[in-house]
């Protein structure tokens, strides 16, 4: 089924905005996506009609709020094809989900001399928690290198996977290169040596059909706000047996069964990892976002993005002085990072903003990757289900205009 792009765009009220008297072209969804009406309406209805704290009250409002919040968990579990709802832990975002694993599973299972295998294309949030853990436990980080065209050097994987590797943490899709990584293959080879695998799905889950049982990963982390949901809600999927064996993360209300003065026992999954009042309405909003994406079909969303990005790549590559990072269209998702004619990314992003175009400039929280590619900063246009080929045309025209204003030759 093909996306009806005009209907999709009509679902996103923000796309009607004018920026500097030009229609908004939003190309920063890799940082955070816009929200469709069903999500906004679900959240407003939750606050207006059935708001109360969850998991406690016996009164009607609390029952309703608990039902909506827990229904969102079922929706997420089905969206990623988890075996059970107990495997879906709500967190603040991807970063917190990864930190949860580092602080609980990591502290219990990583010791001196152990290795954690990462890749050179990871986001800082899939590097720094492991640095903290490795420093604390006397473990070592090793990195699977990337090729010059921005793919993982898979022929190096088996060399790096030895019995010292206890954990492999890898992104499903690079937030700079757009590269879709072969996570299924990585999981298979990592499991063969007994390593646990965490997949960073911050970029992958919003854009691709994801089936955790098919991928086979032990953990999957992702954020609501990059997939049409609100900020403040994210997900850690974990295999039930692993989650059962892990100590809790944050202590407090809701995560306990019984509290005595000097000891406590823990609640069942998934609440064992959800201390304190959760992001109730954000959870409900995420449930609505999942309904929205499933209504369109993730295959259709991914196909629309592939088509739009393939067009954008062709259009941008034709500009003199354009260097696009990452692999060709068939190996990537919605992210297109580039440098253009020696124009500083901040200047480029600023000049594009004056044309109503929102892009990101900087290192995109991937400094080691930029260093590997011999760059400090790039400009990144990221496409999502509401973007069109016409917007890629407008981007290309605005880039040419920027070059004219700054008088930079190709």
């Amino acid at each position: 089924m093909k996306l009806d792009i005009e209907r999709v765009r009509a679902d996103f009220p923000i796309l009607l905005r004018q920026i500097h008297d030009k229609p908004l072209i939003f190309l920063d969804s890799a940082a955070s996506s816009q929200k469709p009406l069903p999500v906004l309406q679900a959240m407003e209805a939750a606050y207006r009609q059935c708001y109360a704290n969850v998991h406690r009250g016996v009164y009607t409002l609390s029952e309703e709020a608990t039902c909506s919040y827990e229904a969102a968990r079922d929706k997420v579990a089905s969206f990623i094809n988890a075996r059970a709802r107990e495997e879906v832990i709500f967190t603040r975002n991807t970063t917190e989900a990864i930190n949860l694993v580092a602080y609980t599973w990591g502290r219990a299972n990583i010791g001196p001399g152990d290795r954690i295998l990462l890749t050179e294309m990871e986001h800082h949030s899939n590097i720094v928690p492991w640095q903290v853990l490795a420093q604390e436990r006397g473990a070592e980080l090793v990195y699977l290198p990337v090729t010059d065209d921005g793919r993982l050097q898979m022929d190096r994987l088996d060399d790096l996977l030895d019995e010292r590797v206890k954990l492999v943490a890898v992104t499903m899709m690079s937030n700079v290169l757009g590269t879709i990584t072969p996570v299924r293959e990585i999981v298979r080879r990592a499991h063969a040596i007994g390593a646990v695998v965490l997949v960073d799905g911050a970029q992958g889950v919003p854009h691709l059909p994801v089936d955790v049982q098919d991928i086979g990963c032990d953990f999957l982390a992702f954020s609501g706000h990059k997939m049409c949901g609100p900020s403040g809600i994210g997900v850690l999927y974990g295999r039930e047996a692993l989650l059962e064996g892990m100590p809790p993360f944050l202590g407090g209300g809701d995560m306990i069964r019984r509290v005595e003065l000097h000891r406590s026992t823990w609640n069942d999954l998934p609440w064992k990892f959800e201390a304190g009042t959760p992001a109730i309405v954000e959870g409900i909003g995420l449930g609505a976002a999942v309904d929205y994406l499933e209504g369109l079909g993730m295959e259709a969303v991914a196909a629309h993005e592939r088509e739009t990005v393939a067009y954008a790549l062709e259009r941008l590559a034709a500009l003199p002085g354009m260097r696009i990072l990452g692999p060709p269209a068939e190996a990537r998702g919605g992210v297109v990072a580039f440098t253009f004619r020696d124009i500083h990314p901040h200047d480029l992003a600023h000049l594009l903003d004056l044309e109503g175009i929102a892009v990101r400039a900087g290192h995109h929280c991937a400094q080691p990757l930029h260093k590997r590619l011999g760059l400090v900063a790039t400009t990144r246009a990221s496409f999502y289900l509401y973007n069109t080929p016409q917007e890629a045309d407008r981007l290309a025209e605005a880039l040419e205009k920027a070059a004219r204003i700054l008088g930079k030759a190709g």
Partner: protein
Amino acid sequence: MAQSPYRERILDHYRNPRHRGRLEGPDLVGEADNPVCGDRVRLELRLDEAEQVVEAAFGGDGCVISMAAASMLAEQVHGLNLEELRGLTEKDMLAMLGVELGRARTQCALMPLRALQAALKALPTR
């Protein structure tokens, strides 16, 4: 509607920077950088016996705004004494540029001032 800061006066300072280069044996040297974009500015000053700036030079890499700001600052500090240098504020730096900038770009504009402040901080109090 915000006006474009990419106007002729700023572009002119960017394309034809004033006082770009190094001084031999400067009295004051300061640097500032922004790890987000890798930009850096270095400011060098020579003072006369009355501790007034007689020569200024800047170097570094950066966007149009930070480099134009550095060029303007290097021009403006001429003849100022230490007290006047210390009295230069963010408002003064933004006034030199004379354009409206958002929160993010204001950091680019202030980088040369940060380099000057670093230079003054490194100065032994005489």
